[in-house]
């Protein structure tokens, strides 16, 4: 399966994401600069990596969400192509309107960089098929603006539709209803603050992130 990683000025997890995608798909992803106006043909998966696109100026993800390639990412998502946004990628997806809500400054103000306990809230998405429902897993976070916010109606809706993929299993950043990752209505776009690409081999301290990529590739094949 062909995959791509979108690279913004200030992305810093793009190469980690590329390693994870190559491990899962067996092929190197194409690295696509954000100024491009076209995506490669035949993509099955697009990843928006972590980092600090445009230095988090204005709001995290706000400037990058208006980069030329994001029009194509939106169009691809509308066609059903899988889109995975991690950390700054999640912020980009909310700013671009592909996912509801927003990521606010962490409730405790501190930048948080450590392994955190997560619970798999839904194993019914294409991204979480290799996990058991309610399974406890460990994946690192590294963010300043990870405090998920949406109004109560939106939260009720995404919870009611089973669109919460991951929740924090401990107090992390003040996120509404402990939400760590959500999917869009069609289920082909996932945004999450934790970094699954940083937990894909034993040397990372665990492989809980690897199953996300393996399960996704299996679901898309």
């Amino acid at each position, binding site marked *: 399966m062909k995959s791509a990683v979108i690279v913004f000025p200030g992305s810093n997890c793009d190469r980690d994401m590329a390693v994870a995608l190559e491990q899962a798909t067996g092929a190197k992803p194409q690295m696509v600069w954000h100024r491009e106006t076209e995506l490669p043909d035949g993509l099955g998966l697009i990843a928006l990596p972590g980092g600090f696109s445009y230095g988090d100026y204005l709001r995290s993800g706000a400037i990058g969400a208006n980069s030329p390639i994001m029009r194509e990412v939106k169009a691809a998502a509308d066609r059903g192509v899988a889109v995975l946004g991690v950390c700054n990628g999640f912020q980009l997806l909310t700013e671009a309107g592909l996912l509801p809500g*927003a990521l*606010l400054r962490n409730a405790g103000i501190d930048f948080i960089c450590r392994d955190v306990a997560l619970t798999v809230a839904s194993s019914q998405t294409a991204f979480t098929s290799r996990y058991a429902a309610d399974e406890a897993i460990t994946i690192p976070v590294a963010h300043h603006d990870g405090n998920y*916010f949406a109004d109560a109606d939106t939260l009720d809706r995404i919870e009611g539709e089973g669109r919460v993929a991951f929740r924090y299993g401990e107090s992390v950043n003040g996120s509404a209803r402990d939400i760590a990752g959500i999917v869009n209505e069609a289920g082909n776009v996932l945004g999450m603050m934790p970094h699954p690409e940083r937990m894909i081999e034993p040397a990372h301290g665990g492989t809980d992130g690897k199953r996300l990529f393996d399960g996704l590739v299996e679901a898309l094949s």
Partner: protein
Amino acid sequence: MKTRIHVTLKNGVLDPQGKAIHHALESLGFDGVNDVRQGKLIELDLDESVSDDDIEAMCRKLLANMVIENFEIERDHSEAA
């Protein structure tokens, strides 16, 4: 023509930066500060041809995130060159 955009967090949206400023003011000994909310001030230098609707669109599309923020437009025609 200078136009100022005031971007503020909506009521009910947590503002940890405002809270930190509040605590700092208290530790400096300033009494009577009930709450602090931090926002942004964005100054635009615009041609007269830019309409109010255009500015509103700029705010909605980029300058403010309507999920969490409100904006106020302060347009000063007096400085027109």
